[in-house]
């Protein structure tokens, strides 16, 4: 998914087709990769550790 807006990030992260989340960064040759099954487990832990109430705010629109 080409990222043209923050909404595209949400759309990309909602897809769960592959075992890894791979993110290409502009002008960086090495992609960032995360193992999906570990991400799912870590999410709640990170939210609690950093006292984050909402994992996203995309605006009123």
């Amino acid at each position, binding site marked *: *998914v*080409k*990222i*043209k*807006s*923050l909404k*595209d*990030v*949400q759309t*990309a*992260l909602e*897809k*769960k*087709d*592959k075992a890894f*989340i*791979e*993110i*290409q*960064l*502009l*002008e*960086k040759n090495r992609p*960032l990769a*995360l193992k*999906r099954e*570990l*991400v799912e*487990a*870590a*999410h709640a*832990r*990170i*939210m609690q*550790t*950093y006292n*984050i*109430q*909402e*994992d*996203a*705010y*995309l*605006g009123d629109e």
Partner: protein
Amino acid sequence: MFVASRHLHEHPTAPVTRLALRLLPTAAGAQPATAPPPATQAIDVASGAWEGIVNIDVSVLVPDYREPWNAGQPSGGSGTGFLIGKNRFLTNAHVVSNATRILIRTTNDPEPHPAKIVHIAHDCDLALIEAEDGSHFEKLKPLDFGGIPQLNTEVIAIGYPIGGDRISVTRGVVSRIDFRPYSHTSVDSHLAIQVDAAINPGNSGGPVMQEGKVVGVAFQGFSGRVAQNVGYMIPVPVIKRFLKDIEDGRYDHYVDLAASDFPVENPAQAKALGINGDGVGVMVGDVEPAGSVGDLLKIGDVILSIDDNPVMNNGLVRFEGELMDMNEIVERKFAGDTIKLKYMRGGKKEEATVTLKRFDPYVRLGAQYNQRPRYIVHAGLVFQPLDRNLMDAHQIRDSTVNYVFDNFLTDKLYVERPEPVVLTTVLPDEVNTWLTPYAHSIVDQSTV
């Protein structure tokens, strides 16, 4: 360099020596250099003539763009406003930006009255507020507007600047009338009037008056380290445009040609462009595809006139008796209005009518207010849209991010990527170990 002049509250325990007050020595027997001003210039504050000029005390919550899920940082400040109609007070947008509580009080009434924002226009640094209970202000007389004051004519700035709690008056002359950047957003430029009357923090939003009428709203000045006695006011045409824009109940923002001009001063260049040497015609230097003239003008075209006002070779027009930037004609218009444009292309004269619209991509290059930061957190990766607030908060040094931000308009990067997204932070966790160096990068694409 420019500083908007909202007065930030000092910490109660902070020393008051921040102000180096210098008292002029009084020489016994010395004669005043000039005769005292006539008594008619004196104002009896108790008369109520200026009671419509109010002190505005504001509690602020500054959004946290580093940890956007947080509520923000509490702060406070004060400024000035003045009554322009029934329970309608005009002030600067920067006085009430990000406000969580607004209190207003007159110089003769110590009781603070809660108020709220009715309309706010960040692009011209103006706001309209109203008291929640307007009955306290029903007997006050609204101030009337004048016109554009002439150069070297006297004006007074009235407000509640630092140095005391009561109303304050400073005096000066109109030094310059020019198209200037407005520091509140840092990307907008409009007509502004320079005065040498002292405009200090807290003066913001206060009236600048001439012969009993408002000729401007004090709003910014240079820091004393840069220049002395250089203050600016928002002139009446900008104020009236704001008031007209909100007549339909909402503010529609400024419209823009979204094209830049290039002076035609070289005789050979003028001849090559087909200009006949009468000093009329400025070359189009750049055109934004998403702007009002994006489908009409091309680089190298020569703009000859706007609404039948001839455009000189330096981009100025004579408008309402003054030489002004040609954009001033567009500035007075509203979204959906049209302008008549005469231009030359390849030596041939053309004419077109253009419908004006706001040029949205530039908004993210300026400071934004009264909005909650947008973000996504996923596995400790924090994604945020690229804008000035983000750049200022994160102090990003990555060359790619800075390139995209700096060249967002000039290289028309907004066409391919309207809202670049930055991976701003990696919140450390075992799931994202060793990924911290990826922070401060622009997200290109994702494969999931």
